[in-house]
């Protein structure tokens, strides 16, 4: 268990770096979580393409109460944002640690069910 400081408030993370409490999420929190991955990849910045996926995941969670598995995410993104985005190549380029795992972390969701 660790915490991050966001606007003077401390926000709890679980042992894998996911938010303990979904309600703590904000765009600022997402930015700080993304910065944590800069250690390995200094050039990493959240772009509009990243936000598109992060916002999609938050909407999916809101509707179904789960973080989708990567296969389901890929298919659903393709349906919503077009075939050129609904493929693993595009999504792994955006989120090299695994689209479901990494994007869910930034989106403040739990680790996807079935993600090992």
């Amino acid at each position, binding site marked *: 268990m660790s915490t991050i400081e966001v606007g003077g408030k401390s926000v709890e993370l679980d042992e894998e770096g996911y938010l303990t409490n979904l309600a703590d999420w904000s765009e600022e929190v997402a930015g700080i979580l993304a910065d944590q991955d800069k250690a390995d990849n200094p050039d990493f910045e959240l772009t509009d393409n990243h936000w598109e996926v992060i916002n999609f995941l938050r909407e999916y969670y809101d509707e179904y*109460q789960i973080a989708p598995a990567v296969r389901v995410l890929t298919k659903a993104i393709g349906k919503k944002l077009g075939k050129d985005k609904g493929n693993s190549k595009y999504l792994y380029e955006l989120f090299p640690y695994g689209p479901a795992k990494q994007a869910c972390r930034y989106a403040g969701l739990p680790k996807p*069910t079935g993600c090992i």
Partner: protein
Amino acid sequence: MEGDVKKFMYLNRKAPYGTVYALESLEVVLIGAAFDQDVSLAFVDDGVYQLANNQTTTPNDGIGMKNFSPTYKALGDYDVTKLYVDQESLEARGLSVDDLMPLTYEDEDDDWAEKPSIRVVSREELTNIMDEQDVVLSF
């Protein structure tokens, strides 16, 4: 179907809240769906309540569990499209298919037409379907 595809049935017999069986079953189904097996779910006895429409739980009602029923709507995305509901169990509880969530899936082989996932079956039909399974996991 090619390779070692087995027929898996998850048999659900308990009410959605009060015990963790229903939620655990659903999570196993979602995890198992990644392995490309032939998966079906059956709902018998109080298990039929798992699919009831308009479930609500609030932090203060003492149930102490979140309302996870919206997650059943994601099953179609996971290619879990066969949800057998025992008609006798429904009737014994004064329920009909109209009291259940309208769960659907999109049929890839039929131009992505939206089709109902819930199939109400008689005890006899369910017995036959269970007979065809390679594995039945009871929750």
